């Protein structure tokens, strides 16, 4: 059954090629993408079943034996993450198809969206399956190159500005990764992870520490660990909602995955555990403090994303089976919940015309379904029992208490504090955007000083609230973006008849194809709670497998290394 292993990479790439050729047939393009990603879910599910039953699966690409050829390895960790990411990418694809349909799709950027999105999926899968460091690098580059395009979709002014930060930071991380690869190769003569596992152990301590630190630095940037996280809240919120959602769900988790591999397979029992714990604590606290200061929901969620990376790093840093298993569970939970919240924010923006908490209000009254879709994952993120976030945090805290000592206890305290602050931040969103009555209509001159507009005409009075970026309306070319944030907004208006008691007329009916994928993700999040028992079994088994190292190495080298 090893032929299944390359499929999560190959199928989306093939789909990307096809959708690129189908530029003139939007219907076929949607079908191809949907079929490719549905296949992905099926394949990933089969891989998970197979690896749980029979240990890691290995494929030597082109039949070349391991140290020379490219190896793809699917163990339980990879398979579990593949399942979650496949499900999430499929839901986000449906959402963006729904959004594209509702907005009427035409123009060039949309023809780019589907292929790029599929390449991103392939890159994520490649990173999860890579059996050697260089292939991991290629996987990273694949998903990064796709993410550059998605983040700057339509090349509007604000996206170019935000994209610049993202691209430049990612590029530096890539260069550092290349340098680390060069150093690892120079000191061990191999890049195959199974072979490295043995050879790195034999290296002198100082060289080992240097390589360890370099790799952690690289993956720390990708995962947005605290001192290396400043790029994230700046760049993510400007992208279209589905793009931000899939980035928030998957890209940082690929970094976390790489950290898990480094800490278990390559450098087990390394000397950086304590440093990682301090970093985890700082990531949690600083991240959530940033979230509290935000007035925009997207930015707030970006900061909670950074903050909750700390939980996963915490579990990895503990280095015990319980810690790792908690971290793996938390990754699965967080991918689902964070993606859901960003998708819901996209719906909020559509319904309420803004993501700024200053302008929203009373959504619970006008859009009760939307309120439910927000409320459940939000509580899960904050860790309210019995939702999956609570279970993940509980698992991590138990692991921390079991280890004992000053730092683990500090981390347990830090995670409690972070959970409470997350609850505070997320309830602020709830109170302001959903619960309170509508805020009074803003005088036009305060909203947009450049164009005071007579407030008698509803449509025009809405204009200043929304035409934050007049540049775009001046360039008709950009109005054809697939996920048209700027251009769509004028139709979705927060305040209808200005002067009177404002009611959000906005878009009274959210497209079903956007609501259902979001609802499906909420259901998956709840399912993670109900299926937490089996899921914890899988994550514990994956953690055991990681800590033993032998199954992985033996799967790649059936006859022993060298």
């Amino acid at each position, binding site marked *: 059954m090893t032929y299944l292993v390359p499929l999560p990479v190959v199928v989306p790439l093939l789909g990307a090629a096809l959708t690129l050729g189908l530029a003139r047939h939007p219907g076929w393009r949607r079908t191809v993408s949907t079929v490719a990603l549905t296949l992905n879910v099926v394949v990933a599910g089969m891989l998970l079943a197979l690896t749980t039953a029979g240990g890691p699966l290995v494929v030597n690409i082109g039949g070349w034996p391991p140290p020379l050829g490219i190896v793809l390895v699917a163990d339980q960790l990879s398979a579990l993450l593949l399942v979650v990411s496949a499900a999430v990418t499929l839901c986000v694809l449906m959402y963006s198809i729904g959004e594209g349909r509702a907005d009427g799709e035409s123009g060039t950027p949309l023809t780019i969206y589907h292929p790029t999105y599929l390449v991103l999926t392939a890159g994520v899968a490649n990173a999860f399956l890579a059996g050697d460091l260089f292939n991991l690098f290629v996987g990273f580059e694949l998903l990064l190159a796709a993410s550059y395009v998605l983040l700057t979709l339509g090349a509007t002014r604000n996206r170019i500005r935000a994209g610049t930060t993202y691209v430049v930071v990612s590029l530096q991380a890539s260069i550092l990764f*290349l340098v680390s690869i060069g150093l690892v190769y120079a000191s061990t003569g191999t890049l195959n992870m199974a072979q490295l596992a043995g050879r790195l152990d034999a290296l002198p301590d100082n060289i080992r520490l240097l390589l360890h630190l370099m790799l952690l630095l690289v993956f720390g940037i990708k995962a947005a660990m605290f001192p290396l996280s400043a790029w994230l809240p700046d760049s993510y919120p400007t992208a279209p909602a589905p793009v931000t959602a899939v980035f928030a769900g998957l890209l940082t988790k690929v970094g976390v995955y790489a950290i898990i591999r480094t800490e278990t397979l390559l450098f087990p029992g390394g000397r950086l555990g304590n440093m990682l714990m301090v970093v985890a604590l700082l990531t949690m606290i600083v991240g959530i403090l940033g979230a509290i200061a935000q007035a925009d929901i997207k930015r707030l969620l970006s900061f909670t994303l950074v903050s909750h990376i700390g939980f996963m790093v915490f579990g990895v840093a503990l280095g015990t089976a319980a810690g790792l298993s908690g971290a793996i569970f938390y990754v699965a939970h967080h991918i689902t919940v964070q993606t859901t919240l960003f998708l819901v924010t996209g719906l909020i923006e559509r319904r309420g015309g803004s993501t700024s908490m*200053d302008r929203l209000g009373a959504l619970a009254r006008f859009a009760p379904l939307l309120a439910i879709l927000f409320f459940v994952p939000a509580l899960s993120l904050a860790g309210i029992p019995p939702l999956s976030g609570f279970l993940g945090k509980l698992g991590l805290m138990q692991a921390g208490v079991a280890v004992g000592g000053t730092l683990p206890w500090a981390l347990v305290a830090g995670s409690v504090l972070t959970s409470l602050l997350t609850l505070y931040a997320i309830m602020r969103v709830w109170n302001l955007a959903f619960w309170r009555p509508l805020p009074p209509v803003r005088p036009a001159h305060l909203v947009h000083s450049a164009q005071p507009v007579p407030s008698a005409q509803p449509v025009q009075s809405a204009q200043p609230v929304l035409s934050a970026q007049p540049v775009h309306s001046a360039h008709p070319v950009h109005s054809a973006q697939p996920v048209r944030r700027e251009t769509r907004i004028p139709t979705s208006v927060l305040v209808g008849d200005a002067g009177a008691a404002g009611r959000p007329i906005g878009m009274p009916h959210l497209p079903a194809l956007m609501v259902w994928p979001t609802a499906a993700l909420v259901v998956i999040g709840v399912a993670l709670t109900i299926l937490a028992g089996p899921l914890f079994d899988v994550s514990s088994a994956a953690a055991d497998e990681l800590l033993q190292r032998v199954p992985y190495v033996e799967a790649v080298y059936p006859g022993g290394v060298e």
Partner: protein
Amino acid sequence: MDVDLILMIIIAVLFACGVALVLERSLTRVVLGFLMLGNGANLLILSAGRPGGPPIVGVSAAEDMSDPLAQAMVLTAIVITLGVSAFLVAMAYRSWQYAGNDEVRDDIEDRRIMTRAARDLTTEGSDAEASDTDDQIARAALADPAAAGLHIDDGGAVR
């Protein structure tokens, strides 16, 4: 293993210049810096492999061959660097189309929070008024960053 000193010096120089350029605000210089860093990293990988004759069976003896793996990796890395540089150049051009320069700007929300913090320190005015002014600045900044830069720099005057 043996290390080629000249190659090491070249790598060091490339890295030093690359880092200096990447720290600049102009995107064009960042691109140049990135290219230098990329070349430095590629040379580093190349020097990690063993030097020697062409790694072709029949041309040189197995023990004299250079390491083909390092070269294969560098080829991949070069292709990736090339593609990404093209993207960066396009971004610099787009940035220039919008703003007339290719400087990397600060995040508007960050600047807004900074000005708000600065104002909170100096005065204790009403909160509502402050946030309205903030909004105004942010809106204006989104519409026209160059003009808004002035507003934000002398936030006191706006208030």
